């Protein structure tokens, strides 16, 4: 047994309203640069739908993930080492920009310069790739909320796998949103496909990163990842991927996409797992066994033997404690309501999903039934084969049993809590019918419905015992700082070459304190009064949001009525200053 810790996420799909806030904030934080216009570390796709990039789930075409060889070993679906090297000069399975979309901007200039005329001037779309005028025909969420109707949805590779009857009725039957980030897999095939060894899994927290200094732009990882969550920066010629917001997670605050999720549907926590068991589990013969196989590599952090072994492998005490409080453990192992996305890719993904019950509830309600009644709900879960089969294709390689079990558990919680809500005595038989106790149901309800920030995100800070500089850090993997490679600009050897400059990281500590604090930010406290809209958590009234109007038309920073720009011990000054300076 070799215990390792993995930072993991669970998303509760019932709560996703498809608002794309996570995508937008992630983009602002990480890919708001040239070369990665089309890159969405976080995207939200409508199911049924083609996904992003189009039909990425069709591995017969895109060749992502692993396959099991006849000898029971794993090799990348796109071929072993020799084959990969031989195809290095032109990757035969690389999605082209058309499979994503051609990014564009608008000719806003024209709005200002157009001569006065009868018609209102328009800003025409201009391609960010070729610089020419273009017609917009696709984007990252072109088929949002089933736009394009059956025609677009028919291109859904998952839909193609469920039966004909299901396919015809599906789009009518239901729709839900699927937010996706990199899975930070236990067995990442992106790393396996990288000839340079630039993609690595961090030993401490399992976050999968691309070493920008080592990447040589061979683009094999793009093919290797079955979720197509590695993107090629066409300016710098390097691969980029979701970072699990490591600079934030390292100090114990959640990723940007989680932090900003309006539905509060994301959970982050640690999972301990047995690294020695991963290869065997990922290579089990039946694809439908992969879900259970992956669960079997997780180690119970409450088990003293596991704790002892974890200590021996150098996992710090506070990490073990965090693993014991992990909401991820509860959702995956205790309540068994979270499922992995496409376990059949054999990468052992670590962003799991609670499948949505809402389609079932909607059908019940639309047909005039009581959608809170346990009997009705159970009956509907069993009768509505369509959603269940589709969800099973997404989460359990087609095996409907685990999906049904999860939906029944969610249904039971719904019915059980309804009685409590109405002041009726709780009905233990509902809980018992899904193999739980009333108490467990209530615990699960608390976690799913009312868990506070600290319960949804249990993130121990990384250990760096020699912290000296808190503000100026060379993180080596960050790209977007003023004048750096990420900000465009042409170095001597083409786009974005040249040396790293240290990144001025926001002092996330301060932000974390504020997010956890139950008090409002006091605008009168000069050291904390400036509020950055991006960081503003909705607490307090936005009086402190704007500095008082300066008496003279000087720049606000210089006016005496304002808090001093550099006040020692007020890291928030930096935090709130940076995004504004960037604009």
């Amino acid at each position, binding site marked *: 047994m070799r215990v390792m810790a993995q930072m993991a996420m669970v998303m509760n799909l019932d709560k996703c309203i498809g608002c794309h806030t996570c995508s937008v904030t992630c983009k602002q934080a990480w890919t708001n640069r040239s070369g990665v216009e089309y890159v969405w570390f976080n995207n939200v796709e409508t199911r049924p739908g083609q996904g992003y990039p189009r039909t990425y789930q069709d591995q017969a075409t895109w060749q992502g993930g692993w396959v099991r060889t006849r000898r029971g070993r794993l090799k990348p679906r796109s071929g072993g*080492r020799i084959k990969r090297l031989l195809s290095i000069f032109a990757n035969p399975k690389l999605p082209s920009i058309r499979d994503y979309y051609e990014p564009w901007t608008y000719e806003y200039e024209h709005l200002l310069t157009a001569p006065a005329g009868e018609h209102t001037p328009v800003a025409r779309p201009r391609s960010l790739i070729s610089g020419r005028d273009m017609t917009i025909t696709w984007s990252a969420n072109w088929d949002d909320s089933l736009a394009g109707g059956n025609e677009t949805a028919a291109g859904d590779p998952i839909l193609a796998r469920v039966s004909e009857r299901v396919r015809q009725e599906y789009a009518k039957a239901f729709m839900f949103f699927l937010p996706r980030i990199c899975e930070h897999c236990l067995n990442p095939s992106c790393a396996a496909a990288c000839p340079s060894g630039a993609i690595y899994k961090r030993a401490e927290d399992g976050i999968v990163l691309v070493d920008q200094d080592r990447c040589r732009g061979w683009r094999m990882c793009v093919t290797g990842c079955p979720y197509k969550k590695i993107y*090629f920066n066409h300016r710098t010629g390097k691969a980029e991927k979701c970072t699990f917001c490591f600079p934030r997670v390292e100090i114990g605050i959640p990723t940007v996409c989680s932090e900003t999720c309006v539905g509060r549907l994301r959970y982050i926590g640690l999972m301990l797992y047995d690294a020695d068991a991963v290869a065997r589990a990922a290579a089990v013969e039946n694809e439908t066994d992969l879900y259970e196989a992956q669960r079997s590599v997780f180690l119970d952090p409450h088990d003293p033997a596991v704790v002892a072994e974890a200590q021996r492998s150098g996992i710090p005490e506070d990490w073990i404690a965090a693993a014991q409080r992990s909401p991820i453990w509860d959702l995956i192992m205790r309540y068994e309501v979270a499922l992995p996305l496409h376990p059949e890719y054999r990468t052992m993904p670590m962003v799991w999903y609670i499948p949505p019950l809402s389609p079932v509830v909607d059908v019940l309600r639309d047909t005039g039934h009581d959608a809170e009644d346990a009997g009705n709900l159970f009956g509907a879960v069993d009768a509505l084969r369509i959603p269940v089969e589709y969800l099973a294709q997404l989460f359990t390689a087609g095996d409907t049993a685990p999906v049904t079990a999860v939906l029944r558990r969610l249904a039971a919680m719904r019915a059980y809590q309804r009685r409590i809500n109405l002041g009726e005595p709780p009905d233990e038989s509902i809980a018992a019918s899904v193999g739980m106790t009333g108490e467990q149901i209530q615990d699960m309800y608390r976690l799913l419905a009312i868990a506070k920030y600290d319960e949804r995100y249990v993130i121990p800070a990384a250990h760096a015992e020699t*912290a000296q500089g808190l503000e100026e850090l060379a*993180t080596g993997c960050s790209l977007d700082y003023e004048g750096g490679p990420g900000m465009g600009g042409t170095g001597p050897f083409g786009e974005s070459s040249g040396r790293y400059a240290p990144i001025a990281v926001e002092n996330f500590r301060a932000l974390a304190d504020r997010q956890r604090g139950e008090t409002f930010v006091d605008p009168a406290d000069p050291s904390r009064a400036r509020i950055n809209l991006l960081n503003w958590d909705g607490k307090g009234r936005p009086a402190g949001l704007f500095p008082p109007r300066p008496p003279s038309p000087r720049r606000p920073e210089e006016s005496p009525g304002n808090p001093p720009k550099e006040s020692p011990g007020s890291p928030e000054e930096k935090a709130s200053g940076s995004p504004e300076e960037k604009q």
Partner: protein
Amino acid sequence: MNTVLWVIVPYLSIVVFVGGLIWRHRYDKFGWTTRSSQLYESAVLRWGSPLFHFGVLLVLIGHVVGLLVPKSWTEAVGISEHSYHLMAVFLGTVAGMCTLIGMAILIARRRLVGPVFAATTRNDKAMYVVLGSVIVLGLLATVRANALGDGYDYRETVSPWFRSLFYLSPDPEVMAEVPLGFQLHVLAAFVLFAFWPFTRLVHAFSAPVGYLTRPYVVYRSRDPHPGLRAPRPGWDTIPSSGRRTAAR
């Protein structure tokens, strides 16, 4: 004049080549990439790029054998000058043509496909000129020597001179006698070497051979940079004495 062309220029070029590579590696690891344009256009690249690269690799092998292996060695293992020459001319021409055609396809693609052209820097264009002339001059010299005369045995002249560069006792005189075509090819090659470290061609030096032997999944520890965690007071105990602390 001979000394300038056949001693000073080669040594200068080698110094710039090696020094430039080291400097670039230290200064610009981030810019060290293929700068692939496959995302923009794939159909043509799929033909041109392998044709060019495999051609170039063959040419490289041919040059290594032709320049570095002394004639006496191949003769010692029983390969006559005639059969060596036949083989070299045949393989060399095929490889050279592959390279040339591949390159022509790639350059045409670069010019004609809008997004690819837009991503082409001036540095790239200069590089194409130099690289192209080296290849064309080399092919021309070979083809002319074999089509007009009955071949030219560069292994009697160019190769010993090339090796003598590395013994640090260069012999410029032999090069003076070499046909102009070969002279130009050699000079162009040294210009290319001097330019090499400053172009995208550096990616040739990151040929990922280590991939064949390393495990599929790479694990690495977090960078030992100063952490983002607030500094602890000195008397505070460190929560674990595992490898993470040991590493620092």
